């Protein structure tokens, strides 16, 4: 089989799944299933590479031609997703919009064809990295491993993270402490700490008085903590609070309550690690350019 056949077959399977099942719910592969899949995949690929590494199918799968095919497919799917408004189809949707929704393009990051392409890319990256590691060629090709390993880690962290991440919105008022957050479906998440607003401050530009920064001070279990736009506050390991909005009854800068976003993502270090490896790899590659 040629790379194009692998990609088209997988894409066809993805489209079939999309038509039969609709989009993916990332939570179906939440911990510990995601970690088990990752370890099983790596172990299998390690054995496959060791036992059948020189077979045509394996060589094709880790070839630059496969990389080109996958990059074209992912790129095309991104372009199609970028052209399609990401929203549920309304009743008065055009035929074109309905056609795009049929392929899952109106929610393309969680559509089966796109996820299948990303999984294929992950498989390709895994094989390429394992091949280099088994050849013990990593010393002469550190940037290669940094780049591919970084992308692998960021992809794994992003995909597994979307299954395990918890997000909730919290309204924190001055009067009474709260420990309730609400997810996108309105379900209550009970927080293991209490929050109360004690102060809110808007910094304004001297010349035109437009807002430059919003800053809130909270009591988190009676401990004062401040947070501002672009400056979240870490409450626990892998859990951060973000300032989203404020409410003021008399339209002044004195807020009665603030809207916070709580994000709990245990895969945050994996994604950050992948990003740093990618940065290091591209920097190293640049250094080697003459």
């Amino acid at each position, binding site marked *: 089989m040629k790379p194009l056949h692998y990609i088209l077959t997988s894409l066809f399977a993805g489209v079939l799944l999309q038509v039969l099942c609709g989009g993916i719910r990332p939570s179906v592969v939440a911990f510990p299933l995601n970690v088990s899949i990752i370890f099983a995949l790596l172990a299998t690929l390690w054995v496959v590479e060791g036992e059948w590494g020189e077979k045509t199918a394996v060589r094709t799968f880790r070839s*630059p*031609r496969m*990389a*080109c095919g996958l*990059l*074209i497919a*992912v*790129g095309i799917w*991104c*372009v199609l*997703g*970028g*052209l*399609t*408004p*990401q*929203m549920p189809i309304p009743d008065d949707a055009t035929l074109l919009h309905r056609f795009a929704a049929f392929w899952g393009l109106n929610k*393309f*990051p969680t559509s089966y064809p796109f996820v299948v392409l990303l999984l294929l890319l992950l498989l390709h990256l895994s094989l390429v990295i394992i091949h280099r590691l088994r050849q013990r060629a990593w010393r002469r090709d550190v940037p290669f491993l940094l780049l591919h390993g970084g992308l692998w880690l*960021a992809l794994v962290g*992003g995909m597994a993270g979307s299954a395990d991440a918890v*997000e909730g919105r919290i309204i924190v008022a001055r009067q009474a402490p709260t420990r309730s957050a609400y997810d996108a479906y309105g379900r209550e998440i009970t927080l293991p700490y209490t929050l109360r607003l004690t102060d809110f401050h808007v910094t304004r*530009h001297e*010349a*035109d008085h*437009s*807002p*430059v*920064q*919003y800053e809130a001070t909270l009591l988190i279990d009676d401990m004062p903590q401040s947070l*501002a*736009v*672009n*400056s*979240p506050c870490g409450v626990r390991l892998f859990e*951060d609070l*973000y300032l989203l909005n404020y409410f003021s009854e008399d339209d002044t800068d004195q807020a009665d309550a603030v809207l916070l*976003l709580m*994000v709990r993502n245990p895969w*945050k270090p994996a*994604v*950050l690690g992948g*990003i740093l490896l*990618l*940065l290091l790899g*591209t*920097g190293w*590659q*640049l250094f080697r*350019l003459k």
Partner: protein
Amino acid sequence: MLFSWNIFWLFALSSLLLWAVGAVVAFRRGETCRRLALGLTLAGLAVYVAFIIGLWTSLGRPPLRTLGETRLWYSLFMMASGWLVYRLWRYRWILSFSLIVAAVFIIINLVHPDIHDQSLMPALQSGWFVPHVTAYIFSYSLFGCSFLMALIGLWRHTEVYLPSADRLVGIGLFFLTFGMLSGCIWAKQAWGDYWTWDPKETWAAATWCACLLYVHLRLKADRTDPKGQTTVAAYTALIVIFLLLQMCWYGVNFLPSATQSMHSYTQ
């Protein structure tokens, strides 16, 4: 206020004049002419940079927020990249082509200057703001130069421009990746997610894929394609990269999905 968009025309026309003379001189043979072309282009860049520094100082923020302001940087980096390519690889046409692209963006700013308010909104108050945007725009200018090389290469049916394009893409890919990844880290600080498939991010991913495709095509050419059968594919990839980054930069604003974008700061 000494520096504002009101006096932009003065600096823009001075720079354009210096760059135009430099581009004409570059077509004349001889080391003296080459040095003169480089010197004139550099002088034009100095005038242009002086305006940007002045505008930055008088605005009290980096002029990087709106399309009009990013056009300012793009035209600067376009000429700077052209100057660098001419200095390194002596393509005499590159200054003229860079000038045409830079002039288009300068003229758009002269006709439609997009004069903006003074301050930077809270969402953009971050240490990542300047490196994220400048790295992106610098990479755009390098891909602009490689796009010109691709057009000339396809027109002349030659692969001689590919080694130079490789270097431009190599440097451009570093800055594009840095711009994208610094954006990821910033997004985590601001919105709680490294990547949300926002319309702008989706187009950025497509552009990055196209850049990586070019790199892999060229690797494949080195290994299995000594006769250069992938030359047309490589040039085509350069053109696709350029078109995608135009979409990522401002084209996305004209799509229906733009209303959902968290990257809309101009309203």
